[in-house]
């Protein structure tokens, strides 16, 4: 353990940066998009994941400046990721994924549903939550990048 102030803080920043990059990658690769609202299980998973990497970032050091450097690094990286995605919309597809059409003109697109792991029951739940009972009444249903299924009914 190196105690000389600046070097140790720099190592904290590097640790936080590595954790950030790997977590973004890891969640992107393994995380199936959760459909619908975030539930308790999802929230708990996120909290536990955050706690699992906590000591890896701060090296178990409880000092305030360590905490500030670690949190600051994360905020800075999160902000630059958002700016990057904003400037290059094409990158968004790689980092966050693209929306997928699930239903077009009342017809399911089974290939897309399989690829995104959306079950028939999940789709119908989203449709009912929009106040529509039958698939035939659905003009368009899209799995958005935030995992929500948006449903556009036919205008009558």
């Amino acid at each position: 353990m190196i105690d000389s102030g600046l070097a140790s803080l720099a190592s904290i920043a590097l640790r936080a940066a590595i954790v950030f990059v790997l977590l973004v990658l890891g969640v992107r690769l393994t995380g199936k998009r959760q459909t619908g609202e975030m539930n308790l299980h999802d929230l708990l998973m996120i909290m536990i994941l955050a706690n699992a990497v906590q000591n890896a970032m701060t090296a178990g050091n409880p000092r305030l400046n360590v905490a500030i450097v670690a949190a600051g690094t994360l905020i800075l990286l999160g902000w630059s990721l958002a700016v990057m995605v904003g400037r290059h919309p094409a990158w968004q597809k790689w980092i966050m994924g693209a929306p997928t059409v699930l239903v077009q003109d009342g017809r399911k697109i089974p290939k897309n549903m399989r690829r995104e792991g959306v079950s028939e029951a999940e789709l119908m739940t989203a449709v009912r939550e929009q106040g529509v009972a039958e698939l035939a009444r659905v003009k368009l249903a899209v799995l958005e990048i935030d995992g929500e299924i948006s449903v556009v009914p036919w205008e009558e």
Partner: protein
Amino acid sequence: VFERWLADVFSHPSWLVLLGIVGRTAVVYLLVVAAMRLLGTRPLGRMSAYDFVLVIVIANAVQNALVGGDNSLAGGLVSALTLLVLNFFLTWLLDRFPRLEKQLSGEPVVLITGGIVQWNSLHREGITRDELMAVLREHGVAAPDEVRLAVLEVDGAVSVVLGEAHVHRTHRRFRGRGVT
């Protein structure tokens, strides 16, 4: 000095310790998932402040158990990776075997069909008449007989499909009742 600095960041405990972290994380994950299933998706339950606090406290309670007091970068990343892979595997399993998913998270329950309230289902799910009426009002409906279909979804939300009158706009009778 720089090499020593790098070594500080990238030094990792022995493989045996890392393997122990994988094991600890797996045990914690399984216990937490089991506990969540016991708590269940509360009917009509949006996430309350109580649920929120519970989740954060549980997460903090298991924190040191995950990495076993290990402070290395590698230890934390191994633990995080274990969590991600296990969660991926669980969701894959639930997708693969829909029957297992039904067992774990339940099936949607019809509460109202064709304007008729299914009291048996309501009793079984522990939903009171007042709660049902509150949900209907939140959807802008005053009485059950205006509802074609109301379903308690597995995530605890209630979805409401209105009667034909509101869609076709032909049966003015329903609208004339002073609902709006």
